[in-house]
């Protein structure tokens, strides 16, 4: 069977690239969007992990065994879902740049 010729459309010197290719894993500085920041009351928090599950940027780490609840503000967009969903109302949204 005669095969169809596979002729490169580009000049042979150029590399044939099939399209824009994503090869760098990046994160944008979404923390700069924040107008209000979530501040957790460590006494009220029962380490249930509900906020961590719902956090869109996965900024919250909850470890029940280590009795740990941490918020990483690098990427936190300040959406407030964590404060809204906390069953113990242990997270408060405080204005960014104001007094804590």
């Amino acid at each position, binding site marked *: 069977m005669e095969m169809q010729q596979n002729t490169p459309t580009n000049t042979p010197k150029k590399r044939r690239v099939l399209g*824009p290719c994503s090869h760098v*894993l*990046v*994160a*944008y500085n979404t923390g700069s969007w924040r107008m209000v920041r979530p501040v957790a009351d460590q006494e009220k928090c029962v380490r249930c992990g509900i906020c961590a599950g719902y956090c869109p*940027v*996965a900024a919250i780490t909850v470890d029940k065994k280590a009795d740990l609840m941490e918020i990483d503000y690098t990427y936190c967009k300040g959406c*407030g879902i964590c404060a*809204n969903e906390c069953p113990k109302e242990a997270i408060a949204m405080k204005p960014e740049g104001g007094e804590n």
Partner: protein
Amino acid sequence: MLTYTIQPKGLVSPGINTCQGCMIDVIFRNVLDILGEDTALVIPPGCAAQFSGCGPESAITVPGIQGNLENSAAIAAGIAAGFRFQGNDHTQVVAIAGDGGTVDIGLQSLSGAMERNDNILYICYDNQAYMNTGIQGSSSTPYAASTTTTPAGKPVGSKDLIRIVMAHNVPYAATASVSHLPDLRKKVKKAKEIKGCRVLHILSPCPTGWGYPSAKTVEIARKAVDSGAWVLLEYENGKVTLGRKPAALGDVAEYMSMQKRFAGIGEDAVATAAKNVTDRYAYLEKLAQIG
């Protein structure tokens, strides 16, 4: 080869330019968490396109391709066929498209993939309008919702994607909501184990397009499930199983009053919406009783 400039959370980059309060990140993170690294993604233009990247940047650590709006299921089917030819039966091919790319523009290619029962997992995250291009109404936009193309409220109801999917006799289909994450994870896990064309329809409220404070995304999604505006169900081997029963079926007034897109609609429109919701649920209940 992927160059890591940051440490991903799971298989997804932590900082993505999705709107404040958007839960698509959570859908991606949970889906990829369950499917694992042995996955190839097809993402059409839309809000989710920020994951496959524009230019050299990517936000996922698995291979992905950004296709066109109308052919994401066809691309996925092609990739699945390629894998089958290579004797690869373990890599999951997943298409993640928005409601516009699924119910409007991509419906024919999805229908073809479902008919051929190609080995793909098709996920539709439903924010009920073309949110990425400026909130134009889609056929998933619910009755009376205001968008830039339906400024006075949509005069007709939405297409019922899950019933269209069921009509194709796919091996597995389910609806899920970002408010019920364990349920969502359970359904993705189940879909992973099944071969053939599987479809997941996930509600993902949009703070920008629906007009509510970004903190309320999960609350609104939960209200949608509780009022019956969004029904959690599973379709497996021809059998429909209803999930969580709505706590207050037909009580859509509060759900609608929380959103600006329903601002200014009359009481009769609310009553019609409530009737649509209760009628649909009654129909689905009857379906669940069969077989």
